[in-house]
């Protein structure tokens, strides 16, 4: 074990870890915000919804489906002009963020819709009866009441993003997944493969663990 530790290129690991953490959490934060907004949009424009709007609903649905349909590797390429505009380069961890966000946002939006669907209709009705505005219903009822499922959804999305970051290696974003594959697996460097995979597993555990803990705390049903 000690020997193994000695063999690990700590600097390389730390850099990759940082890249993964940076990519995962930045894109997670953005995806959750955008996904929540789009999820609310999707949920509230549906036929029984607060802002019932067939066209907007179908439109949002269409865009989400299209984004989800495009393979991640192609998204990486398609958004290059946009990425360059935004971060100035198409390479590196920063440049991966737009693609990651575009991949994860529609995903989280769907999970958010599932969460919202589970909210007891009676409570939404009660807040309507109190004269709550639609915005208040969304912020004060829909989201708080759906919170456990929304938080669990954040975990699922976060862990999926960890997986996506591995693919972002394609544009030189680095990260642990890329390290594991290119330096560990492809080069048959088992030490790198093993240690970077362990780090990814730890990240996954931390995300899931924090999520489970929060859900347990906030779920007062």
């Amino acid at each position: 074990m000690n020997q193994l530790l000695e063999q690990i290129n700590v600097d390389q690991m730390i850099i990759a870890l940082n890249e993964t953490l940076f990519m995962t959490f930045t894109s997670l934060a953005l995806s959750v915000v955008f996904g929540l907004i789009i999820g609310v949009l999707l949920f509230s424009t549906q036929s029984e919804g607060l802002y019932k709007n067939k066209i907007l609903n179908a439109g949002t649905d269409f865009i989400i489906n299209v984004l989800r349909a495009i393979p991640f590797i192609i998204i990486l390429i398609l958004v290059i002009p946009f990425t360059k505009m935004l971060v100035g380069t198409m390479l590196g961890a920063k440049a991966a963020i737009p693609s990651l966000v575009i991949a994860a946002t529609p995903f989280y939006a769907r999970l958010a819709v599932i969460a919202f669907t589970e909210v007891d209709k009676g409570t939404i009705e009660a807040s309507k009866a109190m004269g709550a505005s639609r915005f208040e219903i969304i912020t004060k009822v829909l989201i708080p009441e759906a919170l456990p499922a929304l938080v669990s959804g954040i975990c699922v999305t976060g862990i999926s993003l960890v997986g996506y970051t591995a693919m972002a290696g394609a544009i030189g974003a680095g990260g642990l997944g890329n390290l594991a594959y290119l330096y560990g697996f492809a080069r048959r460097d088992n030490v790198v493969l093993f240690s970077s995979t362990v780090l990814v597993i730890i990240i996954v555990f931390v995300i899931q663990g924090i999520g489970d803990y929060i859900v347990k705390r906030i779920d007062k049903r």
Partner: protein
Amino acid sequence: MIQIQDIVKTFSTKGEDIHAVRGANLEIQDGEIFGIIGYSGAGKSTLVRIINQLEKQSSGKVIIDGEEIEKFSSSQLRKKRQKIGMIFQHFNLLWSRTVEKNIEFPLEIAGVSKEERKERVQKLIRLVGLEGRENAYPSELSGGQKQRVGIARALANNPSILLCDEATSALDPETTDSILELLDRINREYNITMIIITHQMEVVQKLCHKVAVMSDGKVVEEGTVKDIFEHPQNEVTKRFVQTVEGKNIEVIKKELKKLYPYGQVMRLGFTGDISNKAIIADVIRKTTLPVSIVNSNITHSQIGPMGVIYAHVSDGSEAEYREFSDLLEKEGVKVDIL
């Protein structure tokens, strides 16, 4: 004033159409406590939910203070709703909020300042007897406690109209009484219009000024509590009024006949104005019949004591029974010889 005009509500389910409300008409004056009674499934909840437009009617109009509510813009509707409190049959509390925060909710919506909210909430919690449970979540409450949170929440924003869908069904009699008194008091003090769906006839008697009886989606009878209790017209109304006497009249008849096969059982109906006199005593003194009270229910209502007495005369002739009954009827008591 709340006017309900020709309201029809039909639910389409896959099998068939359910006609929950089939043309209801009502007029509720400002400051009135208006009871709605009727069998389970009669359409009471649906009708009340149409008043604040939680449910859209299939046809008909709801007019509040001269304005047709379905023509309101959504922001007008919201403003209006903030002044219509509602107590739900199934409570509909937010599980994610504590007792305190649930009660605070309508105040947040109405944009009441934080300090005032705190104060009002404290007062309401005391009012419904939930001191010490402020920070409990709904899942940690008993059924009656949940209902009380629902009541406090409906009252929080000093509504000018209060819609109650079985507001006291989960409460013990004493708590029910205190809630009814509370409602009565705020009705007097703030002239709040109240529409009260209830299955508890005591609630109608103790609290309501007027009452409507619904059956099968229609308002089959409507009037002052006195009228309804004195002269029930509709079959359904009669049955409900009879339940004030403890049980369905038919059941009581049957039971009493079984219990007292000998002699004669009479039903003496008293309505508000007259029972204040010593009628029974007078009549008893005028006769020699061995009269005993086997079932009775006389309560003080908004119009004076009223109710029914079932008297058993254990021994006597047909003529004597008739004499007794005639004497009572002369005094305004409605007598039925069973």
